[in-house]
């Protein structure tokens, strides 16, 4: 096996193997489990770094295994794959740290971390899938691996949430499968390619291809929480906070959005998709989702639910960016994939901190939280401002590119959608900030579990991750023009997609 | 119980099926393959002189091997659900019937051996012989001479399995030299007789067991 093949498999193995070992570990072996978790996360990060360096140097990393005659499992690391893989690897490290702190002393941690690792393995697989078949394999694996996490608490509410989650995702998976098999029947086993590979089929298949596109987008749209397929996401917020982080930022929702990008850019090809009139409807759906999600978020008193609707809205920025024909929109969508992840994970970390430390679950209970937990609230504020698109945050960068992209594509209505959304974002985030910073704290918190000790407002394992991601939120904007920023990488990808015609 | 309409429908369907079947059979042309001729042509190499026995133990001996297995299986099933741990003592029988059994059973043994011998040249063979042996045991049991079965002991098990085992060993030994049950023509007659002798004993025991393991003296006369 060549080194390059080994390397790419090692990325998958770096979370799979620790996960499998953790499964069979006894509950009491905390230290070994923690070591394994962190070792896996760090190793993965290093490996991703190696790949990043390699890919930008033009190396090709791939692994191919034939499952059935004419059906290959292909894993490869291209620029787009690494964009997502890097995001996941980085965020996974923080989420793991956070989860170790969050779950301290709770039962069934072996199972939890086992599935947790499996989840990230699946996400890596999705990122590096080299064809639709492989994509689907990992996509469904992700569904399966997240279910036990969603229902981890074993309460009836969690069960209900899990059932809704399954119903949506498995249903979506079925549609996706149909579409993929259909394409496989038409073209045989073909790998993802820049500019897509379906245009070779010619115009005779136009109708079929439009229908297949519908199937595929509906399939990935469930995970991407496109309206009206978003129903599971608010339900799934019953899961523990690290899981929410995973769902909203690291893995699930991202996998859906990433799927949209793969399908548009590397299956159909953005130009062929445009010629089939597929992009405008997609943009319309994204627009509806953006507005509808923001609007619903306004009325949620449950903090995590408000964040969940916010995710519904924000993820469709990515889809919208993809649907905007033209390299600028593409960059906007791609970069938002990363930025949204960083920001949203911060928010969920913070929400988890409030809940875990003070027992605060509702927006109305947040009064004065900023004084009791200033660092957490600071991180929350940065991320929330980023979501609104405030300057000097990652959100501002992606919004700017998206707006430009809309203008470039001649879809000015999309710009209005973005503005509307920003206003709505402000409308549901600012009250939270105001309550947290400006209102007096209540005499007694609903359930204060972690007493304040000096300057450390809660467990440091809970505090460190949101602060780190909050800093990244700013860094992504401040250093946007550097060679290693997400933006730079997104531009690289867009350049390849549009064969060099890059602004 | 069953609605009349349903019953009528079933019967109507059955009648039309039977009718179709009969007409289809009447309509058949003569078959293209004529096996009796092939049997006839190979009789000399079969080791026996009776065509049915030749088919049963030589040409299609493999069927017979498996079929003895089926019989043994049925007995296992009966033993598994039917036999009690300890058989009840034989009921005190009635002398007149007992006398008949005592006279008839040895005759049945003789007839069984005769049928076994006859199989080589004329109708007869291990099945029929075994059935007669089994019937003798049933008769002895019914007249209170032979007790019913509990879980069979080692000797009985050995007897039950002997015929099948002999058959199997012959099959295996012949396979080691070529093909399953491919008798060398010179030894075919002797091997078949060996197999049939074993089968007669075992089949007799098995068939008897099917009755003796099930039979319960609760149903006996007061």
């Amino acid at each position, binding site marked *: 096996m060549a080194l390059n093949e080994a390397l790419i498999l090692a990325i998958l193995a770096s979370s799979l193997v620790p996960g499998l070992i953790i499964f069979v570990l006894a509950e009491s072996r905390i230290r070994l489990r923690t070591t394994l978790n962190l070792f896996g996360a760090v190793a993965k990060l290093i490996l991703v770094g190696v790949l990043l360096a390699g890919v930008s140097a033009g190396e090709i990393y791939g692994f191919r295994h034939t499952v059935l005659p004419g059906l290959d499992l292909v894993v490869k690391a291209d620029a787009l794959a690494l964009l997502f893989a890097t995001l996941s690897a980085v965020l996974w490290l923080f989420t793991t740290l956070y989860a170790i702190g969050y779950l301290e002393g709770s039962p069934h941690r072996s199972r939890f971390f086992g599935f947790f690792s499996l989840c990230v393995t699946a996400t890596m697989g999705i990122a590096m899938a080299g064809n639709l078949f492989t994509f689907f394999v990992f996509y469904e694996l992700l569904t399966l691996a997240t279910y036990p996490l969603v229902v981890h608490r074993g309460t009836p509410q969690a069960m209900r949430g899990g059932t809704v989650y399954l119903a949506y995702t498995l249903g979506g998976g079925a549609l996706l499968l149909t579409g993929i098999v259909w394409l496989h029947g038409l073209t045989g086993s073909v790998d993802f390619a820049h500019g897509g590979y379906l245009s070779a089929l010619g115009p005779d298949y136009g109708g079929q291809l439009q229908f297949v596109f519908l199937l595929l987008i509906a399939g990935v749209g469930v995970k991407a929480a496109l309206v009206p397929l978003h129903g599971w996401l608010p339900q799934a917020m019953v899961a523990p906070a690290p899981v929410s982080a995973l769902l909203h930022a690291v893995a699930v929702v991202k996998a859906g959005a990433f799927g949209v990008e793969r399908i548009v850019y590397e299956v159909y090809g953005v130009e062929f998709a445009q010629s089939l009139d597929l992009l405008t409807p997609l943009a319309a759906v994204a627009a509806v989702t953006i507005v509808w999600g923001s609007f619903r978020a306004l009325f949620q008193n449950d903090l995590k639910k408000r964040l969940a609707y916010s995710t519904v809205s924000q993820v469709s920025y990515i889809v919208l960016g993809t649907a905007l024909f033209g390299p600028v929109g593409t960059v906007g969508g791609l970069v938002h994939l990363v930025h949204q992840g960083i920001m949203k994970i911060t928010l969920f970390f913070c929400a988890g901190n409030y809940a875990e430390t003070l027992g605060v679950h509702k927006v109305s209970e947040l009064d004065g939280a900023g004084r009791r937990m200033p660092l957490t609230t600071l991180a929350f504020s940065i991320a929330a401002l980023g979501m609104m698109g405030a300057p000097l945050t990652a959100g501002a960068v992606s919004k700017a590119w998206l707006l430009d992209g809309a203008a470039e594509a001649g879809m000015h209505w999309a710009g209005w959608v973005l503005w509307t959304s920003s206003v709505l974002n402000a409308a549901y985030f600012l009250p939270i900030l105001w309550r947290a910073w400006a209102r007096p704290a209540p005499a007694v918190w609903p359930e204060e579990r972690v007493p304040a000790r000096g300057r450390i407002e809660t467990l440091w394992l809970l505090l460190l991750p949101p602060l780190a991601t909050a800093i990244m939120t700013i860094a992504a904007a401040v250093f946007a023009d550097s060679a290693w920023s997400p933006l730079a990488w997104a531009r690289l990808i867009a350049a390849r997609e549009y064969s060099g015609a890059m602004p | 119980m069953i609605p009349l309409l349903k019953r009528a429908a079933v019967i109507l369907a059955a009648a039309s099926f039977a009718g179709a079947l009969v007409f289809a059979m009447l309509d058949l042309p003569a078959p293209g393959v004529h096996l009796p001729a092939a049997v006839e042509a190979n009789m000399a190499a079969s080791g026996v002189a009776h065509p049915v026995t030749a088919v049963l133990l030589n040409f299609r001996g493999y069927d017979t091997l498996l079929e003895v297995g089926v019989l043994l299986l049925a007995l296992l099933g009966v033993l598994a659900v039917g036999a009690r741990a300890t058989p009840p003592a034989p009921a005190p029988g009635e002398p007149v019937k007992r006398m008949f059994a005592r006279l008839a059973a040895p005759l049945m043994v003789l007839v069984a051996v005769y049928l076994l011998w006859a199989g080589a040249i004329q109708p007869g063979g291990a099945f*029929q012989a075994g059935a*007669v042996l089994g019937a003798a045991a049933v008769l002895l049991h019914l007249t209170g001479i032979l007790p019913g079965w509990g879980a069979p002991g080692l000797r009985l098990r050995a007897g039950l399995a002997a015929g099948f085992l002999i058959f199997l060993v012959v099959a295996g030994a012949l396979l080691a030299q070529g093909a399953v049950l491919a008798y060398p023509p010179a030894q075919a007659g002797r091997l078949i007789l060996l197999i049939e002798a074993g089968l007669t004993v075992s089949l007799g025991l098995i068939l008897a067991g099917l*009755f003796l393991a099930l039979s319960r003296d609760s*149903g006996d006369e007061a």
Partner: protein
Amino acid sequence: MSTSLAFDLLLAAALLWSAWRTLATPDIFRAAILFIVFGLLLTLAWARLAAPDIALAEAAIGAGLTGALLLDAVGALRARRDSAL
């Protein structure tokens, strides 16, 4: 109509009739006895088909074993019902 044809037809008719009665009668006892009768007729049919081997097996098994098995079972199945009555 030759004698042999008459014999065969009569035998076939008797076979069918006895089978029909075996199946149609609601009483297990009667059914068992009719089935024994059916078996004996079947023996004759095998004889008529020039299949003495089968006739022999049918006679030995039908008369010796199946009959006893069935009647024993009828007795056992009725014993319980009667004592329950």
